[in-house]
């Protein structure tokens, strides 16, 4: 079975290639079969491989396809490395990816560019799989840039609208800034280790570098740069809200469940490096904490349903970074998986709503959908409960609680990080249920057109089940104590060292988290459903509205970057369009030309002038000779 590993990324690639080459000539049913089928078979192989992996429990499967190139000892291969960490990722990518592909067959049914959509989606899934299966950082980089390309293509999928193209380019450019940092990190790693093979680097790094070595810190920061760019964390988060310009299944797959968590994967994969660089690891936690708060506040003020979810994604990835920053590697990966389920679910529900309301995305024009779209309502509610970490029943509670708990219990954590996480949880449950109440309750404002059929309903229900039940594979010590997930990852990702004797406080903290979550929901209920006056009074306050506008604009980052970077660059380019260097050569040419004009005048054909010239010249030469 392990020999089939290569098929997992190869099938989506093959699907994309077929669709690009012959797509325009194929009937739609065949396009669907290729587009959905390729990912479906990949998912099936992943499941089979997963069962085999669980029963055999090898350290990893390794498969080398070919030697990419080999220059003076630098010899990366196109080779795949499947261990528990990549197992979790490929499971989410292929399985959630498959559900989203199924969903897309209905969502995109009326689009004239149906084939192009599936070609890009398949290409994305293939690249993402390469990213998480690569056994060396260069191949990882290939997947990394590949998903960036697909993200660009899919954000700008409806290319006729210039704003979509702008969002797409913005996403590509900003993530490329991070990628550049990462590339420099790769140069340094290669210089030190002579290879980019991940396992070799992980084993050798401990011997070559002491904890806190300068090189290790720099490299870790550079890799963090790449992670921050891809995962939409501060300070490179500004592209993600705009990325919602793409079709909703794209947002679900790329900008919620998979690609944006590539940064989390990278840090978890290179955790040895980050352990050697405490400063960088602390930075990961701080970035996570700050991002989750800023993005949470921004989410509170958005009216576009998808933008709320986008900011929510940034914020939730902030939680993952928070976990990574304190060394709670498996908690981060656990939250990645659960988040993948519920966020994909929420996006798909949002898509169903948008489709039903004739591409209306503004929540102010929704309302009363509870009765009209019951399946969507219930599944959205489940997703929202998971996002808001409603205690006991939702998977999000268990994954988020673990992260919060380890902020205090873990040795690297501290109380500030914990408080940031807790405050973030409070904000999260407010904005989540703000969405629920505005969208599904109150009076109906827009006519409901399209009722979701099977292709939309089934993915929603499957993801809803996972968003509820997914949490039960990892339960806290004092509550069932199931550690299936962290056990599974333990060969790859070391456990957090916990402060001794701290666990007696665990139930108190859990209670606190539960109270915070529920009170957030209650506040949302008060403001957005029960007491509209409260909301009206908020709207009357100038200060509140100023804050609202500031948060709505995503804390003004876009403006800041435009002012500091974009405008100066564009200005510089515009000013120098004619190339100032060329003016020097033009000047030389002009000078020659004017001399030419000057001397042609002397060629008058008048003999006396020539004689005069000869005489003057002779006198000058004589004078010079005598003087010298």
């Amino acid at each position, binding site marked *: 079975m392990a020999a089939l590993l290569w098929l997992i990324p190869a099938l989506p690639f093959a699907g994309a290639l077929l669709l*690009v080459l012959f797509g*325009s000539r194929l009937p739609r049913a065949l396009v669907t079969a290729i587009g959905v089928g390729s990912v479906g078979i990949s998912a099936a192989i992943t499941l089979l491989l997963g069962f085999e992996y669980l029963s055999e429990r090898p350290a990893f499967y390794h498969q080398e396809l*070919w*030697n*990419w*190139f*080999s*220059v*003076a000892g*630098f010899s990366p291969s*196109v080779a795949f490395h499947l261990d528990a960490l990549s197992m979790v990722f490929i499971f989410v990518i292929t399985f959630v990816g498959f559900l989203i592909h199924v969903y897309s067959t209905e969502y995109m049914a009326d689009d004239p560019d149906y084939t*192009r959509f599936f070609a890009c989606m398949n290409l994305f899934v293939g690249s993402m799989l390469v990213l998480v299966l690569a056994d060396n950082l*260069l191949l990882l*980089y*290939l997947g*990394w*840039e*590949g998903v960036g*390309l697909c993200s*660009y293509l899919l954000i*700008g999928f409806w*290319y*006729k609208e*210039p704003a979509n*193209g702008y969002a*797409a*380019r913005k996403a*590509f*450019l900003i993530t*490329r*800034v991070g*990628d*550049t940092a990462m*590339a*420099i990190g790769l*140069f*340094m790693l*290669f*210089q030190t280790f002579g290879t980019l093979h991940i396992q070799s680097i992980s084993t050798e790094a401990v011997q070559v570098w002491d904890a806190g070595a300068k090189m290790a810190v720099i490299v870790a920061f550079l890799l963090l740069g790449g992670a921050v760019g891809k995962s939409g964390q501060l300070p490179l988060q500004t592209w993600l809200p705009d990325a919602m310009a793409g079709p909703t299944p794209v947002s679900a797959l790329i900008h919620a469940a998979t690609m944006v968590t590539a940064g989390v994967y990278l840090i978890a994969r290179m955790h040895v490096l980050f352990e050697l660089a405490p400063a960088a690891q602390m930075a990961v936690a701080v970035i996570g904490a700050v991002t989750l708060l800023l993005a949470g506040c921004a989410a509170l003020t958005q009216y576009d349903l998808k933008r709320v979810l986008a900011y929510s994604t940034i914020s939730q990835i902030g939680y993952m970074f928070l976990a990574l920053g304190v060394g709670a590697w498996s908690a981060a990966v656990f939250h990645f998986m659960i988040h993948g389920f519920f966020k994909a679910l929420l996006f798909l529900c949002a898509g169903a709503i948008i489709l039903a309301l004739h591409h209306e995305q503004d929540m102010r024009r929704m309302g009363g959908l509870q009765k009209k779209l019951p399946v969507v309502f219930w599944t959205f509610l489940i997703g929202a409960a998971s996002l808001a970490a409603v205690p006991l029943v939702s998977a999000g509670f268990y994954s988020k609680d673990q992260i919060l708990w380890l902020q205090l219990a873990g040795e690297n954590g501290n109380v500030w990080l914990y408080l940031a996480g807790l405050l973030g949880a409070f904000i999260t449950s407010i904005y989540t249920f703000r969405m629920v109440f505005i969208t599904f309750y109150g009076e109906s404002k827009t006519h409901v057109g399209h009722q979701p059929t099977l292709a939309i309903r089934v993915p929603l229900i499957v993801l809803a089940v996972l968003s509820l039940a997914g949490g039960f594979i990892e339960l806290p010590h004092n509550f069932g104590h199931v550690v299936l997930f962290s056990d599974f990852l333990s060969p790859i990702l070391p456990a957090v060292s916990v402060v001794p004797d701290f666990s007696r406080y665990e139930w108190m903290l859990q209670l606190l988290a539960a109270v915070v979550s529920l009170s957030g929901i209650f506040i949302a209920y008060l403001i957005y459903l029960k007491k509209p006056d409260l909301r009206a009074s908020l709207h009357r306050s100038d200060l509140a509205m100023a804050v609202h506008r500031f948060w709505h604009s995503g804390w003004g980052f876009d403006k800041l970057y435009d002012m500091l970077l974009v405008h100066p*660059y*564009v200005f*510089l*380019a*515009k000013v*120098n*369009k004619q*190339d100032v*260097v*060329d003016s*020097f*050569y033009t000047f030389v040419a002009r000078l020659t030309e004017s001399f030419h004009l000057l001397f042609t005048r002397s060629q008058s054909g008048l003999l006396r002038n020539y004689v005069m010239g000869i005489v003057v010249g002779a006198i000058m030469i004589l004078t010079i000779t005598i003087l010298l």
Partner: protein
Amino acid sequence: MILLWLIVLLLAGGLLAWIAQRWHTASPRWIALFTVLTALLLTLMLWFNTGASPTGSAWLLQLELPWIPQWGVGFSLALDGLSLLMLSLTFFLGLLAVLISWREIQSKVGFFHFNLLWVLAGIAGVFLAMDLFLFYFFWEVMLIPMYFLIGIWGHENRRYAAYKFFIFTQASGLLMLLAILGLYFIHGNQTGTFTFNYFELLNTTLAPAAARFLMFGFLAAFLVKLPVVPFHSWLPDAHSQAPTAGSVILAGLLLKTGAYGLLRFVLPLFPTATVEFAPWAMLLGVIGIIYGAILAFSQTDLKRLVAYTSVSHMGFVILGVFAFNEWALQGVVMQMITHGLSTGALFILAGFLYERLHTRDIRQMGGFWATAPKMAVVALVFVMASLGLPGLGNFIAEFLTLVGAWQANNWLTVFATIGLVMATAYSLRIMQKIFLEKNLEQTVLPDMNVREMLIAAPMLVLILWLGLYPQPVLDLAKPAIEAQLQAYNKPSVPQEVEPVSQTALYLPAADSVYFQNLKGAFYERK
């Protein structure tokens, strides 16, 4: 001998094409196609037959014929992996150049193909010549037909562009000629044999000051050709005014002769002087990368835009050449090939668009994906190649160059890497302005036809192949690169320099062997 036949074939094919126009207007096209195809097949045959040299020498084939023995000029050609790669690229792009001119060129068809084939002959000669006199000769042979190609079949401002191109390359070429002569006399003085032979001149011992001067002479020609900022300003004009075939040959091949010259002549001839100059050269490279990228971003003329991306990409070449290690040099060789393909493809696309729209102004384009999806996909691939997307050949080139450059100079490499972000900005702009957004003028752009697909398909396959499995190319280039680097891998022993060498340039002194001989001859005659 086959090396000689390759060049003779092109020269003869060119003449024949010119003459054949009298019989039939289409015949020059077929003659040119047949000639270049034969040359390409011969080169590929060489590739598959020679393989690795059994003796361990980098040289696969050598040819030595006397030419002007009195001056020590020989007709000496030699082929190693590097030349073989460059020849393959030359004939491949040459073939495409013939194909894309099929429709575009309608006037003076015979003379056009004469010039086209003679440029190719000159380029092939440059890649093969192992005699500096002969090298200079071919350097000129490729210049003059190119001048005609731009000046006769170019766009609206062709005269200006052709003059500019000619003056820049000619002036810098003359400096190289001076340096060649200087080297010739110094070597002659030292050894008593006056020769232009490359292999003999490699053993010349040079005083540091003399080496510096001679190196600058060679650099002048190569840096202008490459081009390096601030000597680049001929390029945007020449590239944008030339007919499509001319642009492809300029960007794909002529620029590469500069890079080739650096590798073949500057590195091995002046090992100490280049090491001194290396940080400055790398700085020039980085400036080129960034400056070219900024200028590319602001252009509205599609061909001018692509021309400036060439300036930016060629910055990587000089950055890598002066890093003096195998990673960087392999990166440079890859860059020469992949840039030839990707930029060539972008110029070809610009040609396709011009044929349909009669404009190169991207402000008048937009939304063409809807009616020309095939062209859009092809453009997407090459735009991605130009921004260095992994999986395509240019990535391997740039990554290897940067890895190598990093070993030599950290900060400059950081700035060069930032150039990749800028490359993203201008590359995406190409896609955006031409194929995305709204179709403002409601132009219905016909998609690529079969002939055009036949041109694009091999380029697509090659750029993907080079991105996923570049090893055959790297293997072929390896011995040649190691040979160029020999002088740098030796433990650095300070070279023995004659103490008398205070003058900047070794000119034949009055008592030198050369003058003694001359004097002897003179008195005998008296």
